[in-house]
């Protein structure tokens, strides 16, 4: 692969998705560059999560193609995309609540670093991998050591979110796709999750879907804003000052004071 930091890792070409008569994603072209930290912003119902689900293989697009490093992956299953190096998290934390924190991590670790063949699954015990260096290290760096033996269903939302991201990072994917990783978290927890994500910057390509801009301020390197299934702005944070964005996002007319936008964003 190219050493150029601007080489494209994921590309969407004219991707559309309809649900009945609603066009959730409308002819979107998008490029995600290697090792960047990018964001998809937009108000509720803007099509961010649907677009994200198209990228990760949760849905198949009605039109268009998804390319991963130049290769067409549109028809690949989620498992095949995982094997290529794409790993996602879910908006509503998606974990195995009936397993311990460590065993959740073991499952993420085992698939990524060993195998998913039934024979390997049968001949390896969880116990053997619970003390693996990588798992211990990630428990420590995500501040989850205390709760390692606890069932996930007994965790708080912040801990669960951190654990889900830990699972994704443990798999050492090329692209980390995070669907609203900060939703529903308290301020202190948001800081914890962002601290964890900051450690990954430069190691992986990170794409974050986020609803609240204030959460990810000074974290994203490049962002797009979606509205009614289309990308209406792209670039740095300055693109949020785009009148169209302000109108769609905060229902603020271009004539209003910019401080009102800042107020609404937080």
């Amino acid at each position, binding site marked *: 692969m190219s050493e150029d930091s601007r080489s494209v890792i994921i590309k969407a070409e004219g991707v559309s998705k309809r649900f009945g008569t609603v066009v959730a994603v409308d002819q979107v072209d998008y490029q995600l560059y290697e090792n960047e930290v990018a964001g998809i912003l937009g108000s509720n119902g803007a099509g961010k999560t649907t677009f994200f689900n198209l990228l990760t293989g949760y849905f198949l697009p009605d039109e268009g193609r998804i390319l991963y490093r130049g290769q067409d992956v549109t028809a690949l299953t989620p498992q095949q995309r995982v094997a290529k190096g794409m790993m*996602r998290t879910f908006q509503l934390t998606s974990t*195995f609540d009936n397993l311990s924190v460590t065993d959740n991590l*073991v*499952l993420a670790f085992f698939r990524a670093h060993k195998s*998913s063949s039934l024979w390997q*699954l*049968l001949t390896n015990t969880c116990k053997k991998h619970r003390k693996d260096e990588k798992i211990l290290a990630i428990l420590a760096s995500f501040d989850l050591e205390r709760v390692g033996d606890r069932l996930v269903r007994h965790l708080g939302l912040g801990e669960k979110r951190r654990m889900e991201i830990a699972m994704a990072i443990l798999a050492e994917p090329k692209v980390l796709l995070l669907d609203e990783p900060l939703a529903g978290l308290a301020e202190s927890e948001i800081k914890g999750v962002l601290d964890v994500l900051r450690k990954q910057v430069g190691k992986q390509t990170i794409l974050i879907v986020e609803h609240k801009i204030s959460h990810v301020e000074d974290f994203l390197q490049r962002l797009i804003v979606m509205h009614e299934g289309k990308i209406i702005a792209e670039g740095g944070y300055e693109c949020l000052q785009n009148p169209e964005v302000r109108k769609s996002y905060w229902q603020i007319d271009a004539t209003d004071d910019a401080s009102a936008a800042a107020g609404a964003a937080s």
Partner: protein
Amino acid sequence: MNALRWWWGILLTFALLGIARVFLPLPFMNEVVIFSIYAMGCNFLIGRVGYISFGQPAYLAFGAYACAFYLFYFGTNPYVGILVGVLGGLIVSLLIGPLFVRLRSDYFAMVNLALAVIVFYLTQKVLVGITHGDNGLWFLTRISSTPLLDLTIPSHFFIFSLLLAALVWAFYKYLDDSIYGACCLATKINENKLQFLGYHNFSIRLLAFVIANSTTALAGAMYAVYLGFVSPEMASPSRAADPVIVTILGGVGTLFGPIVGAIAYTGMKDVISKLIGNWELFIGFLLVFIMLVADKGIWGSLAPVLEKWLFRRKSPDSRGHD
């Protein structure tokens, strides 16, 4: 410490079953041991993979009839018969599994019940030529004596089935501790996430289906050898809930649940049926009571108390079973 504890547990359980043999009638003990194997398969499906099946008698019958066909038409060695029975169950579940495991749990329950109905009528009416319909197949006198453990002698059969039950139990204990066991629990509650971690839900479930139903077929083959007789009654849909009842009675997803459930169920059946005519009515009420009060079943409710009492320590909050 933990490892020591479960080995002690299982040794104690099977030793107790062995000792109980001295005080309790042999047919009862044999019934308990075979039933607990039957329930272990069901317990794995419900507790680990989250599939409730009301069609377990079908798989019991596959094992029993495969074994019976062998012993009635071909050979005389009961060990080979049991092996044939297990293989029969294995092959059938490999064939129908790919169709069934795609279903959601509620449909899975119903489609299995339908299978039990089909198997019942196949053995009773359609394949009368080889199954002898309601008369069943009798082959008790054909079963040959074998050296060491002679399965034609009930007390030998008991030792054999006890050993086999311990083996099956240890196998499920091993599965529980494996990465595969964790995958089963994972696919039970969040198949989406498992898929997005890169695992194949389908093959994980198919394997669980095959393992559980081969265990059930093993129980069927053991019934066949023990009774020297099979009839369509074995696949009767009216007995469809039995293994599920035993599993729930014992405690879903617990390793000792099937054994405790089988003892409780067979015991109640034996004792209560002698005291009152309609023992099934009593069991019905008892089940309602258990569902409402102690949804963890007998073992599931007793285990924490016992553990506290025996080891004087709080039970650790480790891997769950529900």
